[in-house]
């Protein structure tokens, strides 16, 4: 028994892992202590863990995303340290494989995804004049499945061992023959668990946006960020079920000895690559489109001009969404599918550059002759345009099948996707967070610290990744744990950049703490002289968002309201507001799903089967729950609004 726990269950023998264990234990003890000491358990349960309020769920998503950014960031620094010089002995090859796997998986699925979904939660209902999302209970459930999925993935580091076959988890490497340990199971079940939540989010936001807009707000009068959320939701709905199946099939292969992707039994390893990228390529657009939406909002607000080419922006996003499903083969041109197939996918791939280019020109057009304010969100947007363009152009280079035979699986590819993912998605999330921060927390983020962190990040980012294009051209392969002497100078440079970049993130996070303490409170509700409806609400936003919902005439609803002096509080139109009740079931059910998945990871059916039963019981409880929520009485609305608006004068 002890033997099992020490040798198989816990990961032992590595100083870094002991360090990780110690810090996990210390952090847990610390959190429990603080919560108990300040008697915060009940508050935490009542206000956050059971909440169905989209604003709070959004905040929880973003906190989790920042935590995961740190986990992934530490992985990145460890990799860069190992690669700084030839023959480094910081990480051994096995450990290096684990780290690049968890880095990629965490960053895409547990950092980028919750960050975009968090911002969607915060902003979309406010932008369309809704009081919550269509299915608030489901929304809480989405969050908790993501959260427990992320936890399941993260504990693999100390319990059982991390997956090590890359975030793409290619077979036969990830299959039962070559990875007989349980570690790959963590990848499969953690992604499955959080994937369920993501699919539910897609459905939820699609219905919300289609059915709950303010009167007068036709589709073409929606704020552009809402448009990006709508299209992202559609991509999620069509892409995530593919991942669900791909993961399920590999789980069957690994746990129930089937033959989908195995070499024996006439299975087909390359089918995994196809299924994975059929989801994977749309996935990269899932994480970029909301960032595009944020940039459009930010650029228009801070250039103090209406968005240039609103309709073109919308159509461009639709075209991107469509194309994103027919380019997946570009991830394995070297599979050898033949010239015909490769040419076809080369062409579709390069076509994506057209709508993307249209968007770039529209952003430039929006700024043209604008009176630009250089606040932090705008800085991120300005840095995004040139850096993302580098990512896009190198993407087109990769998209030419014959040329890709040279670039494939080299550092050139690594540099490409970091230019699109960091300069695109991450800058976008930072811009969005700084932009909506006053709406979320009632004060801005400090501008000075914001600018320092911005410059560290942008400069560090370029020092890290620009050299990698050249390393790639020099032939340095990706996923390699030691370097050749001739690659040393550029690698050393890249590692230096990585630490500067990390400093930028640390300052960004420190800014959150600093601003909470020292920034002046935000009283107007309209921190940036905004244009869309979220700025029409008071700050802090009342839990029902809008006392009365305004009539919308254009995609800049609040801009119009400011001209006529209208507000979201029309006393003559007050009615009791129906709101959903908070529920404990989402977190409980997701916790049980966590336990069941953990059981499956270890092939412990005595744990997995009761877990499955628990899930069914939760579903029955839900089905028999006829709670209709409650109504906020008119008096209370009046009191809340007068208090909030009294402050404004």
């Amino acid at each position, binding site marked *: 028994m002890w033997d099992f726990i020490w040798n198989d269950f816990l990961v032992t023998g590595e100083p870094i892992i002991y360090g990780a264990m110690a810090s996990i234990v210390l952090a847990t003890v610390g959190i429990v202590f603080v919560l108990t000491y300040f008697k915060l358990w009940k508050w935490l349960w009542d206000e956050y863990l059971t909440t169905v309020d989209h604003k709070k769920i959004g905040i929880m998503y973003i906190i989790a995303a920042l935590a995961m950014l740190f986990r992934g960031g530490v992985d990145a620094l460890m990799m860069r340290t190992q690669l700084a010089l030839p023959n480094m002995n910081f990480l051994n090859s096995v450990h290096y494989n684990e780290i690049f796997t968890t880095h990629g998986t965490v960053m895409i699925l547990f950092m980028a995804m919750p960050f975009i979904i968090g911002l969607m939660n915060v902003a979309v209902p406010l932008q369309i004049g*809704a*009081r*919550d999302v*269509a*299915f608030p209970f489901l929304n809480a459930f989405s969050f908790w499945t993501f959260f427990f999925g992320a936890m399941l993935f993260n504990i693999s580091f100390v319990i059982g061992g991390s997956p090590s076959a890359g975030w793409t988890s290619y077979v036969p490497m990830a299959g039962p023959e070559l990875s007989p340990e349980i570690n790959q199971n963590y990848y499969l079940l953690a992604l499955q668990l959080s994937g369920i939540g993501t*699919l539910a989010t*897609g*459905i*939820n936001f*699609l*219905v919300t946006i*289609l*059915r*709950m807009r303010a009167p007068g707000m036709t589709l073409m009068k929606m704020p552009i960020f809402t448009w990006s959320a709508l299209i992202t939701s559609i991509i999620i*709905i*069509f*892409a*995530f*079920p*593919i991942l*669900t*199946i*791909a993961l*399920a*099939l590999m789980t*069957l292969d690994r746990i*129930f*000895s*089937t*033959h*989908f992707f*195995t070499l*024996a*039994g*006439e*299975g*087909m390893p390359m*089918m995994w690559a196809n*299924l994975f990228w*059929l989801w994977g390529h749309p996935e990269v657009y899932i994480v970029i489109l909301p960032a595009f939406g944020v940039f459009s909002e930010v650029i228009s607000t801070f250039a103090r001009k209406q968005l240039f080419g609103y309709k073109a922006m919308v159509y461009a996003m639709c075209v991107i969404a469509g194309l994103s499903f027919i380019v997946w083969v570009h991830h394995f041109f070297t599979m050898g599918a033949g010239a015909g197939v490769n040419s076809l996918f080369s062409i579709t791939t390069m076509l994506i550059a057209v709508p993307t280019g249209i968007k770039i020109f529209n952003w430039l057009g929006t700024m043209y002759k604008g009176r630009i304010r250089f606040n932090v969100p705008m800085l991120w947007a300005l840095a995004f345009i040139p850096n993302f363009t580098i990512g896009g152009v190198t993407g087109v280079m990769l998209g030419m099948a014959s040329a890709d035979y040279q670039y494939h699986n080299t550092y050139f590819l690594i540099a490409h996707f970091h230019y699109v993912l960091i300069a695109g998605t991450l800058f976008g999330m930072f811009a969005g967070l700084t932009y909506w921060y006053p709406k979320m927390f009632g004060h801005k983020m400090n501008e000075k610290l914001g600018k320092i962190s911005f410059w560290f990040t942008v400069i560090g980012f370029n020092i890290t990744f620009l050299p990698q294009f050249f390393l790639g051209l020099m032939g340095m392969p990706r996923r390699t744990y030691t370097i050749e002497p001739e690659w040393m100078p550029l690698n050393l440079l890249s590692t230096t950049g990585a630490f500067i970049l990390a400093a930028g993130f640390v300052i960004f996070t420190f800014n959150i703490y600093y601003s909470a303490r020292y920034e002046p409170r935000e009283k107007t509700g309209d921190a940036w002289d905004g244009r869309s409806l979220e700025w029409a609400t008071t700050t802090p936003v009342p839990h029902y968002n809008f006392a009365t919902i305004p009539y919308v005439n254009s995609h800049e609803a609040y801009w119009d309201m400011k001209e006529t002096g209208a507000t979201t509080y029309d006393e003559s139109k007050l*009615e*009791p*507001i*129906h709101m959903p009740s908070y529920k404990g079931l989402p977190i409980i059910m997701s916790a049980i799903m966590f336990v069941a998945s953990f059981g499956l990871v270890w092939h412990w059916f005595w744990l997995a089967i009761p877990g499955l039963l628990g899930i*069914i019981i939760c579903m*029955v409880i839900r*089905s*028999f729950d*006829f709670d209709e929520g409650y*109504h906020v009485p008119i008096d209370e609305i009046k009191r809340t609004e007068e208090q909030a608006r009294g402050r404004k004068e």
Partner: protein
Amino acid sequence: MSEHAELKTGPLEYRREDGPLTILGFWIFLAAEVVLFSTLFATYAVLFGRYGDATPAHELFEMPMALTMTFLLLVSSFTCGIAVHMMRKESLKGLVIWLIITLALGLGFLGFEIYEFVHYVHEGATIQSSAFWSAFFTLTGTHGLHVTLGVFWCTAIIIQLIRFGLTPVIARKTFVIGLYWHFLDVVWIFIFTAVYLIGMVV
């Protein structure tokens, strides 16, 4: 969102404001399910004929069995339609009876499916035999699991109908399970064609 305003006319399941929301949400969920099953069908098509050392499908598939299963499920879809029709006529008793008949037919289908699986396993074709059989059992098994889930779900709704009567909320739930059931029927038609008919010929 002030949905205390309940409409007095129109189909029961659409009268409260959250009715149409949920129903639209469920249609979208079904779209996701279409993608899910398409992926399974694609997998099946790719792995078709990859028997390894196992028995080929055409030696095991039997027309009478497949036809019976198809017949049971098609009829159950029809009775499910009658159930919803009864709901529109606000006949609680008719609704419950037709739902129970639907359930019974669904259970019959499942019985045959289980029998079929056991039979194949005895003949030496299991989910572990080869790529083809893995794909076969996963595709049909996923459909079967969906039907099983539908059976439990429908039972829960019948209990609620009997206990709480035909309220707009329960009407909505009934309507939604109706959609689900018809959807499973459609999927089965594809399975019948792509798996059994083609499997017997090729």
